[in-house]
């Protein structure tokens, strides 16, 4: 039925004089239970859905959306999009909307069991998370948390014959805990899991968040200088999201904003580093048949053994670069947190995978004589993608001495240049986890500047 609605929108647009047109329809249902101050606070069931219309009239682009999925409203949105296109200025770089291409086989992204999970089960999962945290220590307050199940559908139709329908499920569970021991309050400590299938381990989440909170109350001295720092996947993702993940985008490269723009084939990272963007990875949070303009998801090498191999593109920027789109068009979000049907596509990684290596994760710390272990960062979004410069607080963070976590440290900042320090990655762990669009192991980086 939604496929028909999209086809109708496309036909209507062509009748109104659009030279090309695309309808992208997204439906999202979210069931969740929420934790606040050590108890279940409430449950919610939200429905959101809408259609975005991208109309092109002689290289002029217009966009409109509606969250009212009746034929009349959709036709109205088509009229608005065509009108907006006529009112716009010609984009002489515009080439074309995507052409049809074969899709990869489904990447294990929809779980019937998860799609029919009742809210009661989300409450039970939250309760298990709370219990596990408090079982770890009575000094722990499970401050905030949530178990959220998302079920969604994507339908994309364009006037070149692209027609695709994909479904997804996702379950996310998190806890933010703090501990108060004596006069010392821990920072808020997070643990979470994300999965496409009904796979969640509430006890592990509760006890890990609690353990981090308790361990960060044993505070000792921090010394400034250059040290080897072990970055947890969460801290590493935070650092790379606002720098590396930005400058591998084709638009950043073409506009000259990426320091990687003329570095293909050159060494840009330690030879232990291989990065792929993989939208076909089974179970990956952002895996699927297609991106959000109907281009097939694929596996794209970015860095292989430290050498820069490629960039990620949506169709607009791929056309300008005269390459094929890598299936990295995404929608929604931005500064105003718009739903995905409400924006034009932009380039975003699918699952950005850093290949794990052979150092057993628990052995990584043993390799460090004098250094730090950073679980998370504060202020990474203030980094400068063009230059790679960062200046962040490490929270929570521990001192490593003689291969052991000695004590937590407070008031520690890390500063430097992301594009330089990734050349100094000396050790890469053997276990990876998904943190938003990254899949990362722990890494050790030499010579990181620590400020106290």
């Amino acid at each position: 039925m939604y496929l028909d609605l999209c086809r109708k929108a496309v036909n209507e647009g062509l009748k109104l004089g659009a030279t090309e047109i695309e309808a992208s329809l997204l439906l999202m249902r979210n069931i969740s239970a929420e934790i606040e101050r050590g108890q279940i606070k409430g449950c919610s069931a939200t429905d959101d859905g809408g259609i975005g219309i991208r109309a092109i009239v002689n290289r002029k682009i217009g966009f409109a959306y509606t969250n009212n999925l009746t034929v009349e409203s959709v036709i109205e949105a088509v009229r608005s999009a065509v009108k907006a296109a006529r009112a716009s200025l010609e984009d002489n770089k515009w080439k074309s909307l995507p052409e049809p291409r074969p899709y990869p086989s489904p990447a294990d992204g929809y779980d019937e069991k998860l799609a029919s999970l009742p809210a009661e089960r989300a409450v039970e999962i939250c309760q298990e998370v709370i219990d596990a945290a408090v079982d770890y220590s009575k000094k722990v307050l499970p401050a905030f948390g949530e178990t959220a199940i998302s079920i969604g559908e994507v339908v994309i139709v364009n006037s070149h014959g692209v027609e695709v329908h994909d479904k997804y499920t996702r379950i996310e569970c998190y806890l933010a805990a703090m501990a108060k021991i004596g006069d010392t309050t821990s920072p808020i400590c997070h643990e979470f899991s994300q999965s496409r299938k009904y796979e969640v381990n509430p006890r592990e989440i509760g006890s890990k968040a609690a353990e981090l909170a308790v361990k960060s109350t044993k505070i000792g001295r921090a010394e400034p200088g250059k040290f080897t720092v072990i970055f947890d996947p969460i801290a590493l993702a935070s650092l790379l999201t606002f720098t590396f993940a930005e400058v591998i985008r084709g638009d950043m490269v073409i506009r000259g904003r990426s320091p990687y723009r003329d570095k293909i084939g050159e060494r840009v990272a330690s030879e232990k580093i291989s990065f792929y963007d993989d939208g076909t990875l089974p179970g990956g949070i952002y895996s699927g048949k297609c991106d959000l303009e109907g281009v097939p998801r694929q596996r794209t090498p970015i860095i292989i053994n430290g050498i820069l191999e490629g960039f990620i593109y949506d169709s607009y920027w791929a056309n300008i670069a005269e390459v094929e789109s890598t299936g990295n068009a995404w929608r929604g979000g931005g500064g105003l947190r718009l739903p995905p049907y409400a924006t034009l596509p932009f380039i975003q990684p699918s699952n950005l995978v850093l290949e794990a290596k052979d150092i057993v994760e628990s052995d990584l710390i043993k390799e460090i004589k004098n250094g730090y272990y950073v679980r998370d960062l504060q202020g990474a979004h203030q980094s400068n993608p063009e230059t790679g410069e960062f200046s962040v607080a490490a929270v929570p963070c521990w001192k490593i001495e003689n291969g052991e976590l000695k004590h937590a440290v407070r008031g520690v900042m890390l500063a430097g240049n992301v594009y330089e320090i990734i050349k100094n990655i000396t050790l890469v762990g053997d276990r990876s986890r998904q943190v938003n669009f990254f899949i990362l192991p722990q890494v050790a980086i030499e010579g990181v500047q620590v400020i106290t």
Partner: protein
Amino acid sequence: MKDLLLKIINEIEEKGAEYVEIRVQNNNNTLINIRDNKVEAITAALERGAAIRVLVNGAWGFSTTGDLSRESLTSAANSAFKMAKVASESIKEPVKLAEIKSVEDKVSVPFKLNPKDVSIDIKVKNLLEISKTCFSIDNRIKTVSVRYADLVTDQVLATNEGTYIEQLKMYVWNYCWVTGKSDGVLASARDEIGAHGYELFERDPPSKIAERVSRKVLQQFEAKTPKRGQFPAVIGTDVVGVLAHEALGHICEADLTLAGSAILGKIGEKIASDVVTIKDSALIEEGFGYLTYDDEGVRGQETTLIENGVLVGLMHNRETAAKMNVPPTGNARAQDFRYPPLIRMRNTYFEVGDYTFEELLEGIKFGYYLESFRGGQANLDGTFTIGIQSAFEIVNGELGAPVRNIGISGNTLETLMEVDAVGKDFGLEMGRCGKGQYMFQSSGGPPIRVKRILIG
């Protein structure tokens, strides 16, 4: 619409709900993106939807729908009731709401020029002028991105307590990101402004915006990296609001305070130096945080958080107010109909003192003047970080060379004690804050001086 909402509310109440609230919105949004003198996209959208919150046996249920038909609203209300019922099975300490006087009212945010009365052509012309001016200022400017949005919302809030408030909300927002390149060095700067109406561009004409943001880019080419460590600093009007917001504001949002933030149990205690007074007010008309009623129907007001160094109050919704046995402060705000209200800041600021800017610099042998920011973040233990995009050295009481790639970090309970002088020139910055939902708010104050802060 009123009869329908009241009927649905009545049905859910009869099923056994203590509290029922329906918030209906009709939104008229225009978004324009400009990239390097090109119109990237013009988006015009009408959207509508309803958010329904229900309290059953002290547990919350929440649902949303984008369909305002009788059937869909009824079904969403029943779903919210069911969700509350499910949660109530495991609630230990039931939620209670502070009493408020129910009110029937129709209000509007103050504005001079409704953006819907301005043609798309004029909006596009102004934005292109920002972009073109940036490029004309200096050939080292390489890219200009401008994002503009005007969001006009008609909202109805109806509750089973008899509250029925119709409210017109309006935000006009403009954000620029400009980059430059000189001798292989890349630099970038941001500029974010806003107002309730399109008078924004009279107050802040496109050429002025372009000059301001371009200057911040060009300045970085001359800038050196800072010495890192503890230094005295003068925190400018652009940054001081972020300090009020990140260092104090978040841990004074009562939901976060009760979750164990660093100031829990410290009401009435001295947590800042005598010269510090910080407020969060809904009453500053030009501020993005202005509101007559919040999204629970509580009247907007001025809330003092710190008075002469003493922590005197927190920001509440009805739930935390009841829990702490104080009146609610009108801080419950929701992004839109897709979200429930949360405790959010409004206009958060340092009160002015009596120092001139020159007097603030006096006596600093070596330190930093922090002029404008990139962003900020806070943790519940009081750790805050603020990224600084433009800063200068202070040498022997005078402004010196520009510095770049600088961040500051500290802990609220230590840093606010280090404030030893407060300036007299007040400024207010419009911005957004993310706490699961984005929210327009503003923050500000006069420049202040701190004896020491960690420069990283």
